[in-house]
């Protein structure tokens, strides 16, 4: 694969000669797209140069059928903004180069993304700073002026009063298409969501769609160096991002702290202060129940992909055996039906 990547880079880097690729490793995680890191060296202008890259390749099937062009557009839109993102280099729609479509971005050095490492005592000093920074950045994502940006070409903006309906219909359709067995708890939750729509947001914003510990690249100095995994990004109700990050699924420390790093009340306070927008608690409740439904749609998609033999990624049956029932348990709780 190193030689094929080198050949691709040579075709895309004008003036680069003798391109070589080394230190190619697949990074654990990245259940929806394969994530690889590598080092490239080349000769240019008489000098030998080197750079480290990340390659995100689409698998034949995964947890999520997402549009790489949309993800690339969101990364590109936030370049040089107050929202840190890796620099995007190339997007490739021709699957013949590397047996799958892909994009390549800059690798950010000296960062962590591991959901458990941030719980370790070595991170005690940095963790609260990272947690606060995470919700300050979320306020910046939601403050981004998407009107007039490249995002309008890839994302349709809903009216404030239809944000909830569009997302619910989208994820209900995902469950319709992917459930291999009936999902009575998710179906009851969907009926509840229809009967109890949230108040419309004061503003339609960029929604990252998967904003949580696990998709932030953090540094020991207590700062976040990049927000990644924009594959579910869209325009909608900003409260959706808060609710998603608050899900029990991501309570990595199992002590109620969201993402294993911050209490919900503190996260909301940081966000409200940074954004200048109060968080409507009724909307937060609605989007919390919705988040569990959306997550269930993702787990069911992965289950079907594996069951039908479209992928052999072992993370998918693990998700099926553990997270589908855990999501049902979380849904019972968020619906006030846990007993």
């Amino acid at each position, binding site marked *: 694969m190193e030689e094929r990547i080198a050949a691709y880079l040579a075709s895309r880097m004008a003036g680069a000669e003798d391109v070589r690729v080394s230190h190619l490793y697949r*990074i*654990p995680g990245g259940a929806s797209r394969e994530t690889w890191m590598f080092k490239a060296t080349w000769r240019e202008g008489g000098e030998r140069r080197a750079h480290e890259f990340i390659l995100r390749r689409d698998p034949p099937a995964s947890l999520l059928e997402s549009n790489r062009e949309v993800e690339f557009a969101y990364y590109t839109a936030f370049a040089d903004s107050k929202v840190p993102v890796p620099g995007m280099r190339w997007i490739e729609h021709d699957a013949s180069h590397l047996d799958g479509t892909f994009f390549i971005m800059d690798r950010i050095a000296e960062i962590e993304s591991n959901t458990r490492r941030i719980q370790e005592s070595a991170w005690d000093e940095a963790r609260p700073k990272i947690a606060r920074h995470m919700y300050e950045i979320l306020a910046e994502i939601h403050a981004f002026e998407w009107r007039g940006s490249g995002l309008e070409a890839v994302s349709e903006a809903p009216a404030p009063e239809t944000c909830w309906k569009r997302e619910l219909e989208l994820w209900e359709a995902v469950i319709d298409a992917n459930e291999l067995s009936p999902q009575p708890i998710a179906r009851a939750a969907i009926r509840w969501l229809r009967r109890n729509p949230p108040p419309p947001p004061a503003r339609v914003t960029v929604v990252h769609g998967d904003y949580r510990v696990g998709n932030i690249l953090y540094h020991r100095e207590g700062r976040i160096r990049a927000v990644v995994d924009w594959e579910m990004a869209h325009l909608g109700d900003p409260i959706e991002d808060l609710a998603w990050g608050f899900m029990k699924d991501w309570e990595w420390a199992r002590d109620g702290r969201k993402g294993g790093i911050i209490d919900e009340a503190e996260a909301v306070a940081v966000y409200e202060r940074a954004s200048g927008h109060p968080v409507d608690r009724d909307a937060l409740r609605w989007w919390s129940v919705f988040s569990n439904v959306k997550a269930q749609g993702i787990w069911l998609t992965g289950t079907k992909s594996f069951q039908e033999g479209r992928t052999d990624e072992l*993370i998918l049956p693990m998700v099926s055996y553990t997270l589908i029932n855990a999501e049902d*348990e979380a849904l019972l709780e968020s619906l006030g039906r846990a007993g």
Partner: protein
Amino acid sequence: MRPDAGRVLNGVAVALMTKVAPEVRTPFGQQLAGLSAVLLRVVATEFDRIADRLSVENGAVGAILSDAAAVLPDASLAVRAREAADAATAPDLRVSTLQAINDRLRAILVEVHAAIEETPGEEARAMEERIWEELRESTRRRHVEARI
């Protein structure tokens, strides 16, 4: 067959963790070996309990559908609920047979639950609570300790 499947799967899991993972050079490969081991342990648990879980659940959901038929205002749904309840007992104990019956029963349960929610009266409320109790119980039956 002895050693039973659970013991074999757990043995493979231990081998993966203690013999294979330390020999793997990349973080991705090590993670894959660890994930495989945990997955085998989860499958071992499921292998042992799945027939019992499906059998018990099919009986419980069948009983609910049978009783709900008397509360449902929609006559055609009531008929389908009774028919599903009557077919809740499996002709054999193959997991595939039990699972197919479970899928049919829970599909009707979704419809019955939605209809009961819209049905006024104390009987409907009591039935609704009974359905929720079964849904809670269904998560207890499927609960696994392992998490990703």
